[in-house]
Every structure is written in C-alpha cells, then in structure tokens.
C-alpha cells in the first residue's frame, strides 16, 4: 500500500491506536478531528501533497434512549457532527487522493446492516447507522467508477484494542471483489450493504 494515510475520528483514543498501528507499518499518518477535517486537509496538502488511505471513524455519541421523550436537539447535533462529519471528511480529503491508492475506509460500530434487523433499543443509533449506510452506498456508487476502493469494518467497542490490527490488515489488503460494498467484522464475516 501507499505511504500516507489520514485518520479522521471524534475519539482521541481510537485515533492514537490507529496512529501507532499505521506507524508500525511505516505509513506516514496525519490525524484529524471529525469536526474540522478541512484544517488538516490543507496542512496535509502543503506538507505531503497527497494521501493514499483515508480512514474515517464517525463515532456516534448517542443521546440516552428514552421511549417517552425524544431529544430532538441532541439528535440534530449528533447527526450534524457524526453523520455529516463523515461526508465533510471525505469531501475535504478527496482532492488529495486523486493520485494515490484511492482507498476509503470507514470504521463502524453498527449492529445494523441492510439485511439484518436494526438495534432498536436506541433511536439515534438506528437512524444514524442507516443514514451513514446510505451515504457509504452512494459514495461507493459514485467513486467506484473512478477507481476508489472501499473498506467498512465493524469495530466491537468491547475489543477495540484487539481488533485494530485485524482492521488495519483489512484496510490495507486487496479484496477479492472490489465491486461489492460489504461490512466486515473481526471474525472475517462479511455482510453486503
């Protein structure tokens, strides 16, 4: 794989873990907060000129579930920060990827997939996972035509440390079928989106 990667996340610990794992593989890494990706995109452009791998982790801090009263303000804010933040990150770094390996990687903790039942104990989680899933699908439909490849990995919140190496391996390796969008988990199971 190429030599330059960017990690965009809202969660510092995950960013640090990914940073170290990528550095151990001799990959130059830039890290960005999902709330301000364009700042790092400009800096990356000045310093390195282009990137090969973009890893986005739109961690969702969901409002506490409450079936009797929906917190619309929190839902709106989280949608803006996490869901739209993922798209802002892709939009910001896309111009830097044209000459590179063109790999877009997304970290999800979604239980939800298009074929399985949603986790319905959290309204925000169910809705945001679906909105992100749709955004991944449209990005895939659009950018695959230009040679971009996609990796989605479901990171188990209970076993983040153990799963990161497996996830990075997946992000940096070829896939037998680049023309189907799938979510892979730490056991290697894949589900089409």
């Amino acid at each position, binding site marked *: 794989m190429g030599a330059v990667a960017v990690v965009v996340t809202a969660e510092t610990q995950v960013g640090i873990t990914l940073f170290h794992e990528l550095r151990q593989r001799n990959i130059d890494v830039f890290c960005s907060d999902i709330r301000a990706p364009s700042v790092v995109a400009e800096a990356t452009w000045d310093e390195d000129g282009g990137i090969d791998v973009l890893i986005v982790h739109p961690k969702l801090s969901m409002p506490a579930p409450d*079936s009797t*009263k*929906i917190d*619309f303000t929190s*839902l*709106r804010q989280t*949608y*803006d920060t996490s*869901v*739209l933040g993922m*798209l*802002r990150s*892709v*939009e910001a770094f*896309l111009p830097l990827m044209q000459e590179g390996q063109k790999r877009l990687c997304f970290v999800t903790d979604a239980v*939800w997939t*298009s*074929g399985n*039942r*949603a986790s*319905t104990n*959290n*309204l925000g989680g*169910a*809705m*945001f*996972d*679906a*909105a992100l*899933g*749709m*955004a991944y*699908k*449209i*990005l895939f*439909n*659009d*950018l695959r*035509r230009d040679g971009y490849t996609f990796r989605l990995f479901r990171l188990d919140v209970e076993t983040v440390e153990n799963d990161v190496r497996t996830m990075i391996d997946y992000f940096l390796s070829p896939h037998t079928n680049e023309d189907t969008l799938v979510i892979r988990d730490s056991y290697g199971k894949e589900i*089409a*989106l």
Partner: protein
Amino acid sequence: MATVFITGCDRGLGLSLATHFAKQGWRVFAGTYLPEWSDLDQLAAQYPSQIVTVPLDIASDASVRDAVTTVREHTNLLDMVINNAAIASGPNDKEIRKGIDYGDMLRLFEVNTLGALRVTQALLPLLEDSSWKRLCFISSEAGSIARSQRVEWYGYCMSKAALNQGVRYLHDTLRPAGCTFRLFHPGWMRTYMSGVRNERAELEPDDVANIAYDYFLTPQDEDCLVMRDWQGKEWPW
C-alpha cells in the same frame, strides 16, 4: 366518525389523501404549511363538518405543540396519523466532488426524519383510546440502502433511510401498546416536492391516495414492519 391527522396537505399526495379520506366519511385534521396555496381551503369549504385545517411546521416544536392544541379544541381522540409532509430540495442533488450543501442536508433530516417523529410523539396521547392506533409514514424507495444505485442526492436518501429505521424503532417500542404501523413508498408522483409540479413522473397523486387509503385501512403486516410500495411490493431496507 373515524378521525385522521394528515401532515402536508397543501398540495400533492397530502391534498389527495385529505380529499379521499373526507370522501370516505372521515373527519380530517389537515396540516397546512403553505398559506398561499388555496386548494386545501377550497376542499375544507366543500366538507365544512369534516375537514379542519391546522397550521403546521413539522420542523418546529412550538408549531407542533400549537397543532395539538388546535386538535384538542375539537377532539381528544385520533384513530390515525399520516406523516406525509416532506421536502426534497435542489442543493443536495450533487455528487460529492461538486460540493454538498450541509445546511440543506440538515434541513432535510430535520423535516423528513425528525419532523415525522416530532408529530408522532406529540399526537400519541390522542391515539390512546382508539381501537386503531394507526401510525402511517410516507417514505420512499430512496431510503432503501440495498437497492440504492444513486450517485448523488445524499441528503434526501439519508433522511429517508433514517426515517425508515426511526419507524422501526417506534414499531418495536409502541407495538406492544397496541399501535399499528404502515410504511409506504408512494412511487414517482406528479407532485411539487422540488417546488414545481413534476410532469415527467409516472403517477397521479389522486390514484396513489386511493391505493394508500386501502393499504392504511387493510389489516396486514401488524407484527413485522415492512415498507410497501403502491403496487404492494415489499422493499428491502
């Protein structure tokens, strides 16, 4: 007389639904957002004892609260709520490399997704004594991730995908209390979703309203939520 609350009745499918339900003898509380459109007022004049127009901006907590107050001035019982109001604006129809209007995307989520949930939450107490307790949602094939082949339209598609999962949450939460649900994809209609009437579309809203009426009233799919289209076909999530 059975009673229904319908959002977005100024034109398009909402107006057709209000018309059809009134013709079938229902009492209709018809949400209105566009006072410059007179069609709904004309319809209300035809059915003065059945149709009550209710000013309603589903993106506003205060407006929804006021709408509930208006309904309570007439009745404490609703049998059905139809979440029809939605928007599909132009700025979000671009591919990502041509620039995305994030303010517009947030607005689509606020109206198309949260708006339906806001109305449902506010009107839920009025459904408690109904034997129907029916919550209907107008969604779209655009919210089906499995079938999506689009390369743009992020805001609208994401708002409908989120709505579908929000309705699934409501179904799992409220079904044990007796609420029943309908999630309906009405097809490509000659409506004003983008501001002007789409003459290229396939279906007349009046025809779809007839089909929707039957689907909303016919007992089916009560314990497993599905999204069905105007032809009765089930759509994947």
